[in-house]
């Protein structure tokens, strides 16, 4: 029976899609059967970040409305056979997603996978509430920046009130994923520290993803950063986060890409 995980944030552009691809990739690379679902109807991008944009035939709405079978819409990753993508529709209206339809699709997927990772759209509207609705676990992606922290606080409130678990009196397990973190700037007092964000949001920390060129490099070529460069700082940070999701205890580190002088002079990659 799969765990349903929602990657959410409220604010846009903080790294939900990047994190969905990277966590989904890392879990699959660890041998888990993973399905990532794009809930951003009309603005789908998970397909592009995963490098499957030219393989989309059917999408989540086709399945919800019964126009396609789940097996027809699922796109199996070319690099990892235990990683699948269910893309969002680019043309349809987001109102075509119904709560019952989404529940039905998730119930089907629960039998086939170990993890179902739902990439939430930004905002707190229908798409976002549907993405979190059936979640067992939530990863709240936050940048160390005031507007992102404020929106995450709002999302945490919704996870505690508007989800199926919350309505049954249970709790959605919530985790904070701090992305685009610059340890140097945080230490110099130019950026909120991880302790500041943790104290304000009061949810446990899943991982700290350092600001890194590797993230853009991976999305440029349509590969999760954990697959494109597993030894990069964000790659290692996402692997650690994925292990914590599985319940392992992993020491909290902020990996670094920092190179020595020679590396800086000669280490530039062409990719």
């Amino acid at each position, binding site marked *: 029976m799969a765990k349903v995980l929602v990657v959410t944030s409220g604010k846009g552009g903080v790294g939900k899609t990047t994190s969905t691809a990277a966590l989904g990739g890392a879990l699959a690379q660890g041998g888990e059967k993973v399905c990532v679902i794009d809930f951003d109807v009309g603005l789908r991008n998970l397909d592009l970040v995963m490098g499957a944009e030219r393989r989309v035939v059917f999408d989540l709405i086709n399945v919800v409305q019964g126009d396609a079978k789940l097996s027809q819409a699922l796109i199996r990753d070319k690099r990892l056979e235990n990683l699948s993508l269910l893309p969002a529709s680019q043309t349809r209206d987001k109102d075509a997603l119904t709560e019952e339809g989404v529940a039905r699709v998730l119930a089907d997927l629960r039998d086939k996978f170990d993890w179902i990772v739902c990439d939430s759209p930004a905002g707190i509207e229908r798409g976002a509430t549907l993405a979190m609705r059936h979640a067992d676990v939530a990863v709240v992606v936050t940048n160390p920046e005031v507007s992102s922290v404020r929106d995450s606080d709002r999302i945490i409130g919704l996870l505690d009130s508007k989800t199926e678990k919350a309505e049954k009196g249970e709790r959605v397990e919530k985790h904070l994923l701090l992305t685009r973190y610059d340890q140097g700037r945080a230490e110099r007092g130019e950026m*909120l*520290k991880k302790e500041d964000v943790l104290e304000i949001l009061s949810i446990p920390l899943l991982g700290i993803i350092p600001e890194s060129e590797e993230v853009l490099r991976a999305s440029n070529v349509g590969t999760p950063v954990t697959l494109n460069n597993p030894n990069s700082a964000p790659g290692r940070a996402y692997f650690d986060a994925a292990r914590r999701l599985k319940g392992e205890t992993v020491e909290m580190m902020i990996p670094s890409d920092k190179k020595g002088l020679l590396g800086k002079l000669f280490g530039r990659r062409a990719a």
Partner: protein
Amino acid sequence: MNLMSFFNRRTSAPVARERLQILLAHERGIVGGKSDLLAQLREEILAVVGRHLSVERDNVQVKMNRGADLSTLEIEVELPGPDGVRI
């Protein structure tokens, strides 16, 4: 730019932290559907202190920090200099 402003220029994060704490204490009250406890506390403190001392509205700050084990309520009332105090 003197030496102090050179150092002060960089530490904007504490300002961000404080602004967020004040804002979220306020918003959690509203979104959670509860009465706005902090605003109410602030008004009442203003009224009580105002009976004895003249204080500016902006000089009364009420902050609440909620943690897993411990929550604190911090009340800060800034008083004017000796001239402003009427006894």
